[in-house]
């Protein structure tokens, strides 16, 4: 047993390098806000962010000056609309955006998981999105002789992810909506994971079907209750709907966005300090059993 427990500060300092390609786990669920906050706090920069559908945690990383590039199939506030932050950074030339589709991104991460150079698929053969991503190349299928697109593999340097629980060795258990999280983590060279609970080995052994991330590539386990707030975590807490509803207004221009970063990140030494600044009873109201 190798003990991998550390703080978010230690994990981000040790395992995220400037200019890394970073996969961000969580899809509408279990979004690693606490680790993302710490990346902003430590002013990491030049990161190339990778995702299928990129939600508002990407606004945080982009507004915080951490990202140089974003490759994704979608970006914005799910069910709400456009990301003002990303639109502005793209327009001002400070963020390089490569747009494709959610399935193409999924296939590219899956190729990374499989350890193969590409996966063929008929998507992105036609339309204005076709032929815009340089890592998608036309090939001739040796079986059908038809043209098909080779979606090139992605192997991010590091994945950040939040989950329900882990043992000290990094046997991470995750359930609920999965999205692209497991493939993205498997494709990445190492995984930084925050969890609600650290549990004993023997608890993991009783439910090995819940273990989703392979311990041998988990380099850091961070105990952080509510670490996915304001998103939700299945069996633990609900989403803060008001936070998401207010987000567009909170980031409507550069000034508002700076205030948002100030009050959620810069004013705090760590994520627990931020959680303590939230309205009393908010987290209690969000408990899963109240849903």
């Amino acid at each position, binding site marked *: 047993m190798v003990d991998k427990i550390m703080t978010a500060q230690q994990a981000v300092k040790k395992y995220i390098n400037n200019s890394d390609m970073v996969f961000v786990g969580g*899809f509408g669920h279990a979004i690693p806000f606490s680790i993302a906050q710490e990346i902003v706090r430590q002013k990491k920069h030049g990161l190339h962010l990778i995702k299928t559908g990129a939600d508002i945690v990407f606004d945080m990383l982009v507004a915080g000056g951490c990202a140089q590039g974003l490759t994704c199939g979608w970006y914005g506030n799910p069910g709400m609309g456009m990301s003002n932050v990303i639109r502005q950074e793209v327009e001002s030339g400070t963020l390089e955006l490569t747009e494709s*589709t959610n399935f193409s991104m999924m296939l590219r991460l899956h190729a990374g998981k499989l350890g193969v150079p590409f996966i063929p698929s008929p998507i992105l053969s036609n339309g204005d999105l076709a032929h815009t991503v340089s890592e998608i190349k036309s090939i001739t299928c040796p079986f059908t002789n038809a043209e098909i697109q080779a979606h090139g593999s992605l192997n991010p340097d590091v994945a950040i992810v939040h989950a329900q629980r882990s043992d000290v060795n990094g046997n991470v258990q995750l359930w609920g909506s999965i999205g692209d999280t497991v493939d993205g983590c498997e494709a990445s060279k190492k995984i930084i994971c925050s969890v609600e609970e650290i549990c004993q080995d023997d608890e993991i052994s009783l439910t090995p079907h819940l273990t989703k991330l392979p311990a041998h590539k988990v380099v850091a386990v961070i105990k952080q209750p509510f670490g996915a707030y304001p998103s939700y975590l299945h069996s633990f807490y609900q989403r803060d709907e008001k936070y*998401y509803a207010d987000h567009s207004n909170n980031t409507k221009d550069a000034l508002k966005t700076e205030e948002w970063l100030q009050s959620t990140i810069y004013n705090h030494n760590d994520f627990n300090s931020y959680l303590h600044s939230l309205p009393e009873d908010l987290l209690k109201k969000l408990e899963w059993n109240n849903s």
Partner: protein
Amino acid sequence: MKRKVVNEGAQKQTISDDSISQARAAFMASSEISDCKTIFVGIGLPCLVAHITQNYTSPNCHLVFESGLMEVICKTQPLSTASANIAKASKMHGSMLDVFSMLQRGEIDVGLLSAAQIDVNGNLNSSKLNTKSGKTISLPGSGGAHDISVLANKVVVVMPSDPRRFVNNVNFITSPNIPYGNRKGVVGVAMPDAYFSFKTGKAVLQKIYSDRTTEEIRSSLNWDMEISSTLERINPPSNRILEGADIFLQNN
């Protein structure tokens, strides 16, 4: 928001025009879905189509969401494809790869999409809009829309009534109506008053609610509108469906 009385019975209830409009478009789309089909559901209006289909018109359909949720009971409106309300009402939590693989294998009978724009050839735009002043407005992008349009056995689009959305040529072809293999691509688009078929490759008015005229439809589009020689006039959704849709839209 203006709300009108739709039920004169014991429980008086008012429903907003917007809710009625969405329900009419969704009900029109659900008339294109037969029972026991497997449906890939996008966010927004497609969720209301799924709800109406499952509750009123084709109760044994299988609902699939991009996040990997399968066998979903769509009781309340989800804001994202991974929202807790649908995760809790799902019988199978797979991954995004699992459900897109179903799509690519040809096992999705119907893809339900919305879009910022649709053109007369069934091409969809979810990427960017050109304004009259010459500016370009960025949109959130394809997400799974391109993939669904290429890979579903058939695609039914559902749109609000807005002439700017029905154009002869979309500003950007996010989802080309060029389906893979022998799949059918975008077969039609539903809106609050009518349904257009793309059977011939070009939009043709195929169904119209009995409380609307073809001229009303024509004026709500920027299309050179063709009318089918077999135009069907169908009854608008019942009050029961309008009420159910309103409750669905209010609970998210």
